[in-house]
């Protein structure tokens, strides 16, 4: 019988016991797997496999109990009390499971347990001579995370004294649908990278280094790629809707943590094809598998240890950081040790027949993707590195990332269009011209048209350093057209050939083409999605921001003008000539069980015509920490988004401050992702599904039904994703209002102040200086130009004070004034106040790395091509005497098999 003052929770007891039992089971499966494989004992390997299944069941039990504790309000558990309360909707109580650090670790273990169970069930027979090592590797990873759960972050820990009657509630920023999907999709992507790693280690440990493991690994890497893509794009969408700063990507360390393994996973998906086709690059592929897994763990370390500062990272935890560092060291030591140990089996002569071959394009793509991953890693960790080296934390803002990543991204975009046009081994000059003619013409035509119609796109942007300037947008549009032309040509020519072979109509040929070569054409669809995403990126460069203060709401005049209205300067962006006016019509205060809401009603007019009513708002959650959340209102249009934020208000006088962003082409970022997701799903269609479609139905109607079913399934999944990219209109919105009012949660804005509209820059030099100085308020590394807090307003005033009376007559004077402002801020706050690092190391290291990597690629490429020249492709072995006697018979057999191959 427990004392009334001492909390007792059977859930906590059973849950902790389940975790302990899982720990022991994992240790047993790990030991049995290694011993079984090493001693070639089948019974031990069998025992390890069943141990893995049992482990999964135990983690399932612990997770069920955890969620049960949430939905049954068991506040004797510290984690439940910290992350939920009785008034939360059930769905948020369930998602609170992964809302905090402790629960997210348990969620990680659960997802890995599910994935590993599926992977082992599917592959146990196929890879039975390495499956013991595979199980052991997975269990080693699970042991690490379980040790964190049991000894550092036990979600079943209870209060030592009387538990609270109600919980603190989930962080308001997590109480929205994006947080239901975004974190689990990223976790899932991270976890999926463990399976390829386990098979890679299994192959290395067992010495089975043929191509067999590659097929199993490729599917899991594709799943990893798909979920990471989903997680990243949802993260971007979350930032766009939640943070209220009008953008979707700011190179936040937490987002970068997901981006780095995405780069290496993408590189692997390409280089695996080279191994399959040419039998080379085994070491490279194994290294990519290891690096991808390592980066997922590193990303988890970054977000959970406090090693980097981020808008949505977990807090600093030195103990956790140390545990992660030890684990990462073990991963590297074991992986590199095994690679060295098996280096004799991995040696394969890499030979390329020509630079103009698909494999060389893939190789180039791999190098650039790897360069992207390491640059992002370097830049993300640079503040921490600089702090460790000289004690001063140097900030790295989005501008620094963009200067390097934009040109690298453009080269990747070019390769996305060029690689499909190249043949394996070599492409002759004539074929090269024939293949590239149409896409190149499309690119040239687009560039000319864009230059004529939207001359703003000729603007030169500094790349790498300020000395190198390129018309980035123009190049971007040209390359998007190039990729679209290339992929379109591939599809068209493929359909023509398919029609010639089968005699089917165009649509049937298209479906047959895609289904028979799913990886190839699914990959092309992904490339097209990437091109659309870049199309959206190009538009973002022309986004504009306006801050306005309106003293009183009131009815709008017939033409959208009047005292309560404000325009945004007859906006004539590069892609539209809209003329927006905003009528501030009402400000009202509402309240419910969870929050107080202050909502503004805005009528949006384009060229005098009312196109929408939007409701930007501020929410104050009762259980929050007093920080209000920003609820942006977005009017989505094909060519641009109209994005309205309520940045301040005064309920007594109804004064309100608004910030309006016009974001061109942003819709295409989300659309591009949907296309990418569709392509990924096409790549993942199992062969048996295609076989069933090909053979089972005997009638055209049956086949049509199968094709229809597949199309419906794929589109349903894609549409499901699409539906998540749209928000519901508020219940109180007038009928016909097409605006998007999205719940948000970050609370970047501060109520009542209207700081965002204060001390706005009056000239370009002020604006430039304000954009370079980082706001120290703790926001997402925003500049004082963009941040809407009181500190930013005061610092803007300081900039204006420093520049007051300064000569700004010519470029030299303006540059001098700009530098003097930065010098004043640096002397007061240190280097960390600047968004672009001035340290030579920050520029020198990536520059040297880029030049070195390029040089190495050229040298290695020339060597490999020269080697192929010295050793021409293997001559037909069929000419040997023994073979020739039977060749004819086997040629018949081969022809028969070819006839059945699609």
């Amino acid at each position, binding site marked *: 019988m427990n004392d009334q003052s001492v909390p007792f929770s059977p859930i906590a007891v059973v849950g902790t016991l389940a975790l302990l039992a899982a720990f022991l*089971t994992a240790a*047993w*499966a790990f030991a049995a797997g290694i011993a079984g494989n090493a001693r070639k*004992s*089948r*019974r*031990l390997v*069998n*025992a390890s*496999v*069943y141990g893995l*299944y*049992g482990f*999964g*069941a135990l983690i*399932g039990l612990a997770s*069920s*109990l955890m*969620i049960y504790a949430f*939905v049954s309000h068991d506040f004797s558990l510290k984690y439940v009390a910290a992350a939920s309360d009785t008034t939360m909707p059930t769905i948020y*109580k369930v998602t609170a499971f992964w809302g905090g650090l402790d629960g997210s670790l348990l969620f990680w273990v659960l997802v890995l347990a599910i994935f590993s169970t599926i992977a082992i069930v599917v592959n*146990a*027979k196929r890879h*039975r001579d390495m499956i013991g090592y595979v199980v052991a590797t997975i269990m080693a990873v699970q042991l690490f995370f379980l040790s964190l759960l049991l000894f550092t972050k036990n979600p079943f820990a209870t209060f030592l004294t009387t538990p609270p009657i109600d919980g603190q509630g989930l962080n308001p920023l997590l109480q929205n649908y994006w947080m239901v999907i975004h974190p689990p999709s990223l976790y899932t992507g991270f976890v999926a990278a463990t399976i390829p790693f386990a098979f890679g280690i299994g192959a290395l440990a067992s010495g089975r280094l043929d*191509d*067999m493991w590659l097929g199993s690994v490729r599917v899991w890497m594709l799943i990893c790629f798909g979920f990471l893509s989903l997680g990243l794009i949802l993260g971007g969408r979350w930032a766009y809707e939640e943070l209220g700063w009008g953008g979707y990507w700011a190179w936040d360390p937490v987002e970068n943590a997901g981006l780095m393994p995405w780069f290496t996973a993408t590189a692997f998906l390409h280089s695996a094809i080279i191994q*399959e*086709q040419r039998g080379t690059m085994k070491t490279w592929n194994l290294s990519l598998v290891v690096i991808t897994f390592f980066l997922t763990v590193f990303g988890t370390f970054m977000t959970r240890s406090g090693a980097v500062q981020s808008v949505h990272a977990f807090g600093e935890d030195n103990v956790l950081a140390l545990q992660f560092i030890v684990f990462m060291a073990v991963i590297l030591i074991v992986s590199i040790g095994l690679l060295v140990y098996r280096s004799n089996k991995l040696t394969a002569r890499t030979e390329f027949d020509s630079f103009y071959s698909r494999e060389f394009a893939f190789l180039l793509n791999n190098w650039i993707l790897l360069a992207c991953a390491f640059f992002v890693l370097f830049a993300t960790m640079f503040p921490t590195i600089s702090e460790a080296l000289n004690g001063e934390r140097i900030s790295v803002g989005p501008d620094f990332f963009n200067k390097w990543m934009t040109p690298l991204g453009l080269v990747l975009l070019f390769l996305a269009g060029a690689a499909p*046009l190249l*043949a*394996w081994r070599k*492409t*002759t000059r*004539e*074929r090269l011209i024939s*293949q590239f003619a149409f896409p190149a013409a499309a690119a040239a035509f687009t560039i000319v048209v864009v230059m004529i119609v939207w001359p703003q796109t000729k603007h030169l942007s500094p790349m790498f350093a300020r000395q190198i300037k390129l018309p980035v947008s123009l190049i971007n549009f040209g390359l998007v057209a190039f990729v679209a032309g290339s992929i379109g040509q*591939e599809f068209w*020519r493929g359909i023509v*050939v398919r029609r*010639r*072979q089968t005699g089917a109509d165009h649509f049937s040929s298209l479906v047959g083409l895609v289904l028979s070569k799913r990886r190839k054409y699914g990959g092309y669809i992904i490339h097209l999605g990437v091109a659309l995403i870049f199309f959206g990126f190009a538009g973002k460069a022309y986004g504009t921001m306006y801050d306005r203060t309106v003293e009183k709401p009131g009815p709008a005049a017939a033409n959208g003008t009047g005292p309560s209205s404000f325009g945004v300067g007859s906006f004539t962006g590069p892609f539209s000539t809209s003329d927006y006016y905003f009528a501030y019509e009402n400000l009202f205060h509402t309240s419910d069980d969870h929050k107080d809401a202050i909502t503004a009603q805005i009528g949006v007019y384009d060229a005098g015509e009312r196109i929408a009513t939007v409701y930007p708002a501020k929410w104050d959650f009762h259980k929050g920490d007093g920080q209000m959340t920003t609820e942006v209102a977005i009017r989505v249009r094909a060519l641009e988004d109209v994005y309205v934020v309520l940045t301040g208000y005064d309920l007594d006088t109804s004064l309100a401050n608004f910030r309006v962003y016009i974001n061109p082409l942003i819709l295409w970022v989300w659309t591009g992702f949907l296309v990418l997701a569709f392509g990924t799903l096409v790549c993942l269609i199992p062969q048996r599904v295609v076989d069933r479609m090909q053979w089972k139905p005997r009638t055209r109607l049956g086949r049509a039904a199968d094709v229809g079913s597949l199309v419906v399934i794929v589109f349903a999944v894609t549409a499901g994703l699409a539906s998540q990219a749209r928000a519901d209109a508020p219940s109180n919105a007038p009928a016909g209002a097409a605006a998007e009012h999205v719940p948000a949660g970050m609370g970047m804005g501060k109520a009542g102040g209207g700081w965002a509209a204060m001390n706005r820059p009056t000239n370009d030099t002020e604006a430039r200086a304000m954009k370079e100085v980082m706001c120290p308020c703790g926001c997402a590394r925003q500049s004082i130009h963009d941040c809407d807090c009181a500190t930013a307003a005061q610092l803007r005033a300081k900039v204006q004070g420093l520049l007051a009376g300064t000569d700004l007559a010519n470029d030299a004077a303006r540059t001098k004034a700009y530098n003097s402002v930065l010098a004043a801020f640096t002397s007061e706050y240190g280097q960390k106040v600047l968004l672009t690092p001035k340290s030579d190391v920050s520029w020198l290291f990536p520059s040297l790395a880029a030049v070195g990597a390029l040089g190495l690629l050229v040298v290695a490429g020339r060597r490999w091509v020269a080697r192929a020249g010295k050793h021409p492709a*293997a001559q*037909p*072995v*069929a*000419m*040997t*005497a023994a*073979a020739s*006697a039977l*060749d*004819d018979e*086997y*040629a018949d*057999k*081969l*022809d028969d*098999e*070819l006839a059945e*191959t699609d």
Partner: protein
Amino acid sequence: MAKRPAHRPADVSPIEHDHDDAVEGDAPSDVPEAKLVADEAADPLRMVKLGGFAVALIAGWAFVILANKRHITAPVVFVCLAYFAILMTVVNLWRTGAAAANSHTVNDWARPIGARGQLLKEKKTLLKAIKEAEFDFAMGKLSKADSDSLIRDYRSRAIEVIKELDRGGERLTAKEEIAREVKARLSLDAQDKPSKRVKNEADKQAAKSAVKTAKTDAADAKASAKTDAADAKAAQKTANADERQDNADAKMNAGSVDRRAASAPDLQTVTREQEVKTTATGESS
């Protein structure tokens, strides 16, 4: 018949129900190994066990739902899931223990598993590569010469792979490959010099007894019949090759790439060899 103790769990192996694999290793010598594996897969109590599991699961869930007065709320759902997890835990922990304690598990490590699978995969890759090269040529990415060269290489390797598969999926070592080649060449040399061999045999036969002479006559008659059959077969093959060559030419004329056309040098060589063989066997007869 497999000797399996009565207490031994029949479904103890998650791996060994691989019917198409031969089993080697430390299995009891008097047990037909393939049979042993088959027995493990065909557990007569499998359905009983599955039924028992289902009954336990449904009974538990029914109890939980009835205890909550048939109100299926979120907590009830997660309690049901927890119960399912408990059952799965019990089953799998039992099986892991049973598997570890099972001393009769067939050990199949000695067999080079994966060799056949690897060959099948390689064959599949090569078949797709040939198709891909044809497709690339048809789409205009590859020139005729490049396409032919690629297809020829892929076909040669594919034929080798199919041969290896027919041999049971065992790859030959370099030494074995050389021995096989030497043997094959000797065999061909022997066929190239049949008249000399026949003459020697005739000399030997002349020195033997009349009974043996009669036997030699009988043997000659048999050899003659065999040679006639070989002639007919060789002629048929030559005709087939010609026909295929014609077909290849026709396809080439039609503008489509043809696999046979791609490996035309091989075909011609083979055809020439067959002609030589035909001539040689003709001489011998």
